[in-house]
């Protein structure tokens, strides 16, 4: 196996599992350290740089960072990364003077953006400071897209939305509200320099079963129904409600039903637990509110009496499950559940009835636009897609990343530079040694369990539709939770020429992740380390030959807790703890891109 190439920024980036797992590559360990120091505003700005909406995401992000958090591999639960983000947002000072500012002089380029959701807003965030004229067309009377219309206020208060959207629109975005775009052709004719489509995935899936049309008055499409609640068009629902589907939208629907007066809410799942689409924590929150989740029931028919919905008939299913996969399915019976209303939350898709099919924007057989996964450009030059409208429903954090990438493309496109010429990420390493046994980070492992988020008591929770359920962490919880972070960005960096093979690092390592051994191929090496490296998703760090014996130092990155003891016990400083700082290239970094850099990037 060849020595690890640590010059490649991806190597150390991957060690920071949370940052690697985050689509926008938020520097999680850095902002958690800043929170630990009480520097909430700084922590907020670290977040905002990459994810743009820390206050919003700190409440409703789908947290791709948490399942991959290294803490989850040495403890029962990962660090509460998402809720710490909220801590930074809630406790920051006025940071308006630190936000990007509109360029004093416009560059004369006009960009049209369709939909005022997180993707379009991110594009504006990146391009307005570069002098672009951004015009956002929004069908609804307020900006925010699905963040506002589909996420209930008891999870995401309106003030937070207004604040963080305001940070962008206040720079000087031309926001055209109540302005639905009905024809792409007409918009293109207006002569914009580039067009960005960030119109989301606004179409809820339909469930065509007998009785669907006759019972239409009491059958609601989840995302449309949530939007009607958000805008005050709906304020009540029947006593008995069935939610069809068990994704995150279903969780929002069942919990909203309880707040509109429902007494008995059941979420009907076709498959058993373990096959649900909803995130575990959203399921937990719904079940805490006494929502019943009924498994193995497949919808069959809507039942009516005197022209009114009275119940639903289901097939009772049985599954054979092997190694987490369903191998066989059987119908073993039928069951009727009485109900007053049904909410369909079985998925959503993007829909483009307003894009003409003869203007060079190509679609695939499922009517999805063909979009490049790096540049976000459609098959028509100058038209870009991002967010749910590009690749179907994902999460806010994905839409933000799409926005950043599309902004780079648009910036290059408007300057006549090929959009494939993009700057690579950079990596900076700096030693964290402060003294013989002192590091500039909190290296002691704290074995505390994950702090539990406090919720508003059940009795008072349902009185107001807008009562935010989560109270946020209190100061003691914050102080404990920040110490759970393992500082994965403080890297163990090895210098083979200095090593005298005394074994001190190997003997002190609390997780047996170091070994000095003879060379071999990766699979062979992994099997003969001090603790076998069985997690193949985690890299092993392999040194060049050591001076004295020609053996190699191997480190399994999997469960290193970054305590720094290897570096402390090293007599020759062959190990050092160095902070890796990822330099992500945004549109503004491409601004000063010289020909030389362009050639390198290409």
């Amino acid at each position, binding site marked *: 196996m060849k020595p690890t190439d640590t010059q490649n920024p991806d190597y150390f980036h991957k060690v920071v599992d949370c940052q690697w797992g985050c689509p926008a590559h938020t520097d999680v360990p850095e902002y958690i350290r800043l929170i630990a120091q009480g520097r909430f505003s700084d922590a907020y700005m670290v977040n905002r740089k990459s994810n743009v909406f820390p206050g919003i995401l700190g409440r409703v992000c789908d947290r791709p960072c948490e399942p991959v958090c290294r803490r989850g591999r*040495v403890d029962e639960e990962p660090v509460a990364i998402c809720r710490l983000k909220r801590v930074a947002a809630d406790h920051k000072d006025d940071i308006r003077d630190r936000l990007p500012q509109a360029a004093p002089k416009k560059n004369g380029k006009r960009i049209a953006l369709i939909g005022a959701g997180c993707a379009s807003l991110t594009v504006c965030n990146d391009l307005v400071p570069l002098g672009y004229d951004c015009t956002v067309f929004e069908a609804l009377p307020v900006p925010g897209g699905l963040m506002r219309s589909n996420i209930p206020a008891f999870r995401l208060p309106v003030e937070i939305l207004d604040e963080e959207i305001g940070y962008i629109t206040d720079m000087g975005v031309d926001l055209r509200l109540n302005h639905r775009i009905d024809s792409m052709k007409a918009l293109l004719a207006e002569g914009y320099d580039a067009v960005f489509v960030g119109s989301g995935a606004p179409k809820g899936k339909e469930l065509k079963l007998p009785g669907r049309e006759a019972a239409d008055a009491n059958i609601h499409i989840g995302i449309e129904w949530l939007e009607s609640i958000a805008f005050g068009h709906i304020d009540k629902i029947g006593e008995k409600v069935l939610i069809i589907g068990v994704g995150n939208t279903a969780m929002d629907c069942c919990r909203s039903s309880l707040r509109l007066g429902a007494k008995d809410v059941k979420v009907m799942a076709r498959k058993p637990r373990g096959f649900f689409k909803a995130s575990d924590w959203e399921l937990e929150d719904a079940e805490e509110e006494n929502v019943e989740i009924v498994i193995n029931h497949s919808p069959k028919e809507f039942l009516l009496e005197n022209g009114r919905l009275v119940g639903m008939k289901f097939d009772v299913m049985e599954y054979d499950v092997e190694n987490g996969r369903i191998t066989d399915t059987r119908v073993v019976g039928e069951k009727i559940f009485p109900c007053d209303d049904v909410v369909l939350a079985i998925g959503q898709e993007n829909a483009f009835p307003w894009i003409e099919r003869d203007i060079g924007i190509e679609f695939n057989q499922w009517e999805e636009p063909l979009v490049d996964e790096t540049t976000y450009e459609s098959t028509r030059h100058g038209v870009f897609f991002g967010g749910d409208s590009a690749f179907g429903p994902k999460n806010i954090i994905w839409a933000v990343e799409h926005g950043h990438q599309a902004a780079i493309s648009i910036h290059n496109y408007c300057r006549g530079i090929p959009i494939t010429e993009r700057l690579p990420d950079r990596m900076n390493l700096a030693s964290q040694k402060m003294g013989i*046994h002192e590091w500039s980070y909190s290296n*002691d492992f704290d*074995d505390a369990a994950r702090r539990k988020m406090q919720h508003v008591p059940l009795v008072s929770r349902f009185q107001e539709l807008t009562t935010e359920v989560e109270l946020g962490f209190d100061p003691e919880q914050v102080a404990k939770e920040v110490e759970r972070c393992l500082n994965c960005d403080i890297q163990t960096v090895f210098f083979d020429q200095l090593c*005298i093979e005394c*074994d*001190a690092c190997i*003997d002190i390592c609390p997780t047996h992740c170091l070994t000095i051994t003879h060379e071999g191929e990766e699979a062979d090496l992994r099997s003969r380390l001090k603790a076998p490296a069985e997690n193949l998703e985690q890299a092993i760090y392999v040194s060049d030959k050591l001076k004295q014996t020609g053996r190699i130092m191997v480190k399994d990155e999997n469960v290193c*807790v970054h305590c720094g003891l290897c570096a402390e016990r090293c*007599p020759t400083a062959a190990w050092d703890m160095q902070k890796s700082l990822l330099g992500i290239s945004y549109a503004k970094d491409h601004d000063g891109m010289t020909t030389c850099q362009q050639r390198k990037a290409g």
Partner: protein
Amino acid sequence: MTWIAKPNVNFPGQTKNELGLSLRDYEGVTSTLCAGCGHDSITAAIVQAFWELAVRPEQVIKMSGIGCSSKTPAYFLSGAHGFNSVHGRMPSVATGALAANRDMVCVAVSGDGDSLSIGFGQFGHVVRRNLNMLYIIENNGVYGLTKGQFSASADPGSKAKKGEENRMQAIDPVATAITLGGSFVARSFSGDKEQLVPLIKAGLSHNGCAVLDVISPCVTFNDHDGSTKSYAHTRQHYHPAIHTDFVPPSEEIKARYDEGASLPIELHDGSTIVLKKVDKDYDPSNRVQAIGYLEDYRARGEIVTGLLYIDEQLEDMHQLSNTVAEPLSRAAYEDLNPGRDALKKLQETLR
């Protein structure tokens, strides 16, 4: 030393021994020795050996004298008994302890100063007495605690950190122990745990005094060019004469070794050590040959390692003294002190 204690992390893939204990259960407090000290590596090898043997920590007594080496019992087996004795007098205290309680597993850690200078006499007699213990000498050739003067094991011609040359002859604890009639004499190196761990296990299982000399470089005062006990010098002149594999009583031996090429020796407790000769002419049961071999390689400047001499038939102290099988510490007071009348009777027999 480090500010933080080695954290207790529950990571996947940790294994437990027969007693259900993890390796961490055999550790002690964090070492206060210099970073990179060979002694810490030996400590780790001791931890590994005890864990693999699945010895109950409370069954063990750790003995030591004075010096860097003698601090190390604090760093392994926190659950064991221990006695940090006067400089060079550890063998006497160990003799007392084992005389009173012969069921204890005794591991003694000493250094070249503690055993070859101030305690040389004590060392010689405990080997003669064949006290049932593992006697580890952590040998670095310098007095580290007093800032690096040559010790009695420093080789002639070896250079101190500031350049002066040692002109006195060296005491070789291995050759000395064989001459004194030791029953188990081995040498190893702190940087070679593959050799060291089986030797520690064999020494603990051997019935009698197992002397294990371990070259253990002093990173602070004796790891420079010109030193003959540095990591680099030891590795360059390392000569393993024999490979030792320890096979616990429960395991079948023949499946692992072809007869002829290797020499199995059954130990008192039913376990076996299998010696695989690197040098086919070497015979670890021949005292004359062993001493000749050591002298031969010493003249060439090579460091001979491995289990260099063993005589499993020699009687240990309790057999020599014909003591009772029951540890005296568990005997009833009346048996230990039968009273004035019994004493009188005894004296009568001597008149």
